[in-house]
């Protein structure tokens, strides 16, 4: 029970690696990898196998909401031909916490097999994520300063850097209950390889209005581990750093849960919770932490006293000693847990006709004690038997216009697919905040013929459901 509570807590709090998005992939039943978004999703083929190492590659970039267009809001016209950049206005484009995240996933193996109402599937996937958070207060302190209208405010310099590399061995099962409900689950064994996790790296500065004294408060808690050696070496525990790709003692587990409900012939609801779990890091760990957590110190100027005989250097030396004593950092080598980046999806789709459907997908993940929601409107369309399209627009990261496009083409059993959540990014760099692209190739067998028969087997929304196995 204790472990279960820990499991739930870590999963929900979600302080781990950056989340994937896959807004466009979610409803595409033609692509078996959509099952990764909702484990209850069953692809429209009897069985499939991903081309080893080529079945799914995922690249993702996103930031907390700043882009070139917002940058230009800080530009002011001096005359019709000349503009000047107002550095102070640049602050308006920043959020309180500004993150940049990048993620790469490479699936080595992937496959699935359907027996009647049962669907078995598995995967081996390498996952790398980096998420950096910078505080707006840092730039406010530098640009606006601490002595104007914000005198007396607390500037919180809270930095966060999370970088994780782990491998996922997943095995899943989906079942179509008699009636209208599909459920599924995936158990994932995780092997951690590298991590730098910033639990807390913060310096708070308040300038006292009465005398401009600085009230300082700081805390540090950073964990790191690598199978290759000490990422943060210390004198007492320095080891050689040699890359390792197969041996890991950093074990973890994860769980995906999904469900879909066919409300009627037209309307379908689904929900998914993925990456609920954690990794326990035990190899070459380093923990940096404050000797005096959340310690405070007031600096109210250079002290000159009657009894002082020292010079300025001695005072500075004494001040530094005091700061090091107050804000000293200690090192340990204890194991620690890192949570996966848990995400959830809520989807509703409406089947317009045999070929077209529309849907709305609500997405959410947590990072750095903040909730990051997303909303995607999608339009799915099947062109013949070989081509499936999904056009989406996603509102995410304070960006309202992110056009996504998902495409899958089947030639015989061979399938190639490409799914982008911001397909226009090469042409709209200035508005780019998020971008993700998943592409790959599968061999699919027993795909449903385009014979008109209504079936509720995926979030694609009961498209044509042939009963005979075979290629399209």
């Amino acid at each position, binding site marked *: 029970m204790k472990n279960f509570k820990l499991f739930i807590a870590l999963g929900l709090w979600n302080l781990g690696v950056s989340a994937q998005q896959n807004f466009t992939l979610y409803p595409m039943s033609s692509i078996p990898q959509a099952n990764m978004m909702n484990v209850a999703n069953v692809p429209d083929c009897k069985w499939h196998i991903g081309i080893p190492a080529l079945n799914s590659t995922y690249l993702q970039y996103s930031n907390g909401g700043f882009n*070139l*267009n917002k940058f*230009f809001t800080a*530009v002011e016209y*001096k005359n019709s*031909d*000349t*503009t*000047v*950049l*107002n*550095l*102070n206005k640049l602050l308006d484009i920043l959020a309180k916490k500004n993150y940049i995240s990048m993620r790469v996933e490479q699936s080595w193996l992937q496959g699935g097999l359907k027996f009647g109402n049962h669907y078995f599937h598995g995967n081996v996937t390498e996952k790398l994520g980096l998420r950096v958070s910078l505080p707006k207060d840092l730039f406010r302190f*530098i*640009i*606006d*300063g*601490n*002595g*104007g209208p914000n*005198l007396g405010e607390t500037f919180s310099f809270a930095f966060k850097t999370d970088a994780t590399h782990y491998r996922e061995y997943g095995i899943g099962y989906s079942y179509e209950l008699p009636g209208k409900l599909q459920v599924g689950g995936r158990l994932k064994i995780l092997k951690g390889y590298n991590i730098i996790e910033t639990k807390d790296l913060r310096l708070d500065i308040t*300038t006292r209005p*009465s*005398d*401009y*004294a*600085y009230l300082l408060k700081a805390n540090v808690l950073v964990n790191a581990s690598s199978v290759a050696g000490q990422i943060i070496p210390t004198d007492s525990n320095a080891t050689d750093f040699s890359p390792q790709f197969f041996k890991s003692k950093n074990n973890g587990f994860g769980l995906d849960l999904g469900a879909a409900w066919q409300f009627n012939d037209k309307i379908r609801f689904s929900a998914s919770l993925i990456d609920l779990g954690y990794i326990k890091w035990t190899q070459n760990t380093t923990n940096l932490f404050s000797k005096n957590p959340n310690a405070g110190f007031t*600096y*109210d*100027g*250079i*002290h*000159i*006293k*009657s009894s002082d005989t020292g010079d300025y250097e001695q005072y500075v030396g004494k001040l530094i000693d005091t700061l090091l004593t107050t804000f000293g950092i200690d090192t340990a080598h204890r194991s620690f847990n890192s949570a996966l980046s848990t995400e959830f999806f809520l989807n509703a789709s*409406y089947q*317009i*006709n045999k070929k*077209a459907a*529309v849907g709305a997908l609500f997405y959410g993940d947590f990072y750095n004690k903040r909730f990051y929601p997303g909303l995607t409107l999608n*339009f799915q*369309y099947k*062109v013949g038997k070989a081509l499936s*399209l999904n*056009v989406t627009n996603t509102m995410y990261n304070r960006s309202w216009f992110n*056009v996504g496009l998902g495409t899958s083409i089947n030639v015989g059993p061979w399938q190639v697919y490409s799914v982008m959540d911001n*397909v*226009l990014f*090469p*042409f*709209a*760099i*200035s*508005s780019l905040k998020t971008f993700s692209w998943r592409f790959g190739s599968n061999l699919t067998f027993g795909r449903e013929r385009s014979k008109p028969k209504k079936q509720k087997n995926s979030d694609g929304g009961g498209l044509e459901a042939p009963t005979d196995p075979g290629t399209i």
Partner: protein
Amino acid sequence: MLPVIFKITVYLNKMKRFLFYGMAILIASSCVKDARDKFEKLHGAKWSGTYAAPLVNVDLNLNDAVGLVNGFAQLGNYQNNLIYLAYDKKEYSIWGYEMVKIPDQNYNENYALNGTEQTTLTGGSFTLTKEWNVPLTTNGILEADSVYFSKGLLKPYINNQYNHPCSGTITFPDVRLNNNPIVFNFNIPAYTQFNADTLLNLVKMNLTQTSQNFGEFKMQVSVTWTNSGQGFSSGDLVSMGLNINNANFNRIYGLFGSPNLVDAEDSLKTEIFGAGLTSGSVNFDDPRLKVTVDNNTGIPLELQTSVLSANVPSSGAVNITNYPATFNVAAVAFANAGQTIRDSFLLTKSNSNIKTVIDQKPSAINYKLKAKANASGSQRNFINANSRIFVNVVLELPFSGIAADVVLEDTAGFEVESIAEVDYVDWITFRVNIENQMPLSIGFQGYFMDSAYKVLDSLFQPFRYIANAATVDAGGNVVQSFKDGYDVTFDRAKLKRIQSATQLRFRAVVPTASFNGSQIPVKISTNQHLYIKLGVQTKLSAHEEF
């Protein structure tokens, strides 16, 4: 709603689906061009920020203030913590080891055996026993009675010029180490000299055991010859004596006479009444002139003061009254050798005219004094090697009084490299938080001047006191400190004027506190502080084109 969506679907299908992509690319391309155009128009940047920081947190008392302004006087405090300003000058004697010296010296006696003694020796052996009073030469003391040596070498010898071997002892009954006389045994062949030596460290030499009663010690020699059968030659004799080299003492006792161990004529400068504090009035409520004698010898002293006066600018030398013409200082008892006896006489407003003299702001105190040894008559004393007599003349000005219209002024070179980037500074504000526990108001003004000493600007406009005096009661005692907080702002125009300054003239006024509208004597003690917290706030701005 649904039919509309259906129609859109059909329409898109009809438009070959590529229409959508084409439109998207067109829109996106125009966005890129727009961004490039905006960048090309960007030819400058502007910024402004306001920053605040603490600078200094100062805790001063008058000790620091006097040190900063004058740098010449000493400060002390009485048991009631009242601070005084002290001017002092020390006169001193030479060291004891310079006063008395023991030079290198030697002593020799020859003896030739007479016929009877030679006959006895020829018969087998003969023993000669002799004793001499050996003088110890000392310079700087009339009669030396005893010497405690700190170093030196005593080197006795026997030169046997007989053709017979001999043996015996040399004894110094008055030269003792650990109370044991120093004895040398010898056994030498014919025609041989015996040489010995011993360190004199910690050796005591008693020089009073001879009939002279001073300056001599005994040397006893016993020599026994044994017949060698070689007979005698003319001129045979035995030489006996000693050498003393590199001797010095820890303590010497004897008759020193009555020399003047200190003989000084000098003056004590009272800079506080000189340059820098020439205006206004300073009234020290209870000035004191103290003459202190430190005597660590066994010699009683008589301090003879023949002159004690003050140089008053308005009326020349003014005698200070009621000082003792002679003042006796006791000797250190022999049992207390190593200790120091301090004695002094004190002139105050109650026993002299010292307050009247000090009220006239004298520039110096003049004195002529001697420290005469054994003034009451010749007697026997001791000194140590490290003995030294000090006579300290001290003028104490307790900070209990009234200061009015006192102005301190000085001019110094001024560099403003640190504000060379003044074009980026809109303004600077210094936030001052002050607590003054002293019964002194502190007014300060700085005048920024160019190389021709033309005033360009001033620090405060208008002039203001940095801190008012603490509140005092009728007795001049502080009952409540003064607290204040204020800002002093320099705008860009003022900063630019200061930038061209090369000289800074300081002007400070420090009036004492008042009670019921009138200045009364106030007391400044060590536990009264001046706390100043200084913070700076500045607005910086820039507008750069590129």
